[in-house]
């Protein structure tokens, strides 16, 4: 749960110009999974999309 709390907190603080989907593509390139792309593109708000991106499989695995 700490990861989720920290991810919500980080998404709230973030000042980025990219959309969450563009960020995901830029950071994971060819390894971006459909699940992560869906999470980053399908949320209600950009902040929510960013939070979902930060707890996505791509961010949880290295």
């Amino acid at each position, binding site marked *: 749960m*700490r*990861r989720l709390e*920290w*991810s919500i*907190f*980080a998404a709230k*603080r*973030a*000042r*980025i110009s*990219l959309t969450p989907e563009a*960020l995901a593509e*830029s*950071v*994971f*390139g*060819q*390894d971006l999974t459909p699940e992560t792309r869906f999470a980053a593109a399908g949320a209600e708000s950009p902040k929510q999309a960013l939070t979902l991106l*930060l707890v996505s499989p791509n*961010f*949880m*695995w*290295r």
Partner: protein
Amino acid sequence: MTINPSMAAHRFGLGAYPGELAVLARDPAGALWRQTELRMPAANPEPLRRALIEMRAAATIAEKPARQAALRALFKRIRQSDRTQFDAAFAAAAQSTAPFVERLTWFWANHFTVSVKGKPRVLPFAGTFVADAIRPHVLGRFADMLVAVEQHPAMLIYLDNAVSIGPASKAARRSKRGLNENLAREILELHTLGVGSGYSQQDVIELARLITGWTVPIGRRLPNDMEPFFFAENWHEPGQKRVLGVRYGEGLAEGERALRDLAARPRTAQFLATKLARHFIADDPPAAAVDHIAGRYRESGGSLARMSQALIEIAVDRPQWLQPKYRQPMDHMAAIVRALGPEVLKARRTLPDLTKFAQAPLLRARLPGTQTKRAIGPARTL
């Protein structure tokens, strides 16, 4: 052949900032390889000397209540300053321009964990542990790192060698303290050969005897201007010792020789290679991967740069060996900071929780490669 830029950034580094993969794409393996050829800066002895002076100022007060109050105040001040420096040091590390070296530093800091839990006297020395003993050697020789670590005040206090007295030493006649085996046991079990690798309880005792007198000069009767590592000859166990069948005599150099011999053992190569393979290749790495890494270590006389290059070689030549690795909490934090920028760490009220959360290797000693004045480092817990 080369490796996928995302693998280079996420598996070997600390994540990617937007656009980093495009930069890496030209030559991902080369970008990693060049990091292993960097020259690491030597340790700066001054912060550790200052820590000893501060510690002595409190610990040598004659009256017990005043001494205890001074120590409590010192520990409290260090805890607070570590906390306030955490985000700056962590952000600098997460944004490193040599993230593979940074990950390796975290790896070795974790291998040689020190903790302040239940041992507040470690606190003044833990802050520079990584910068003093780990980082200078992370691309150097394992034997040099091993000696630096086992002679560091944070390690000597954490594992009680600082109070270990040879039973036949001069000091033993007027002290109720005796031999303490904790550090010697951890050297064999965690730092070099690995648990269950064929050493005996007698080897532990003999190694403990060899490193008696390795301590920190905090005692009241000692002069104020001593170096933070002190070989107390009158605490040292005289006579012959025998570790894993090798004979040693007495004195500081013999203890160091024993550590260097341990570093050179094939079992140590195998143990270190297994840990590296688990971290970088797969949770359950193929034996051939471990053998390749251990082989590079043996043929290079224990070079950690060669060992690190072996990991790149595997990623290039045997990409099918690399299996998904779950990020530790601190890794996850680092990847977020690298992707989103250090602003995400700003909010003082959350820092105590963050520092507890980022439990992994680097909490109680300075993060390496940072420009901050004071910082964080290895610990099981804060």
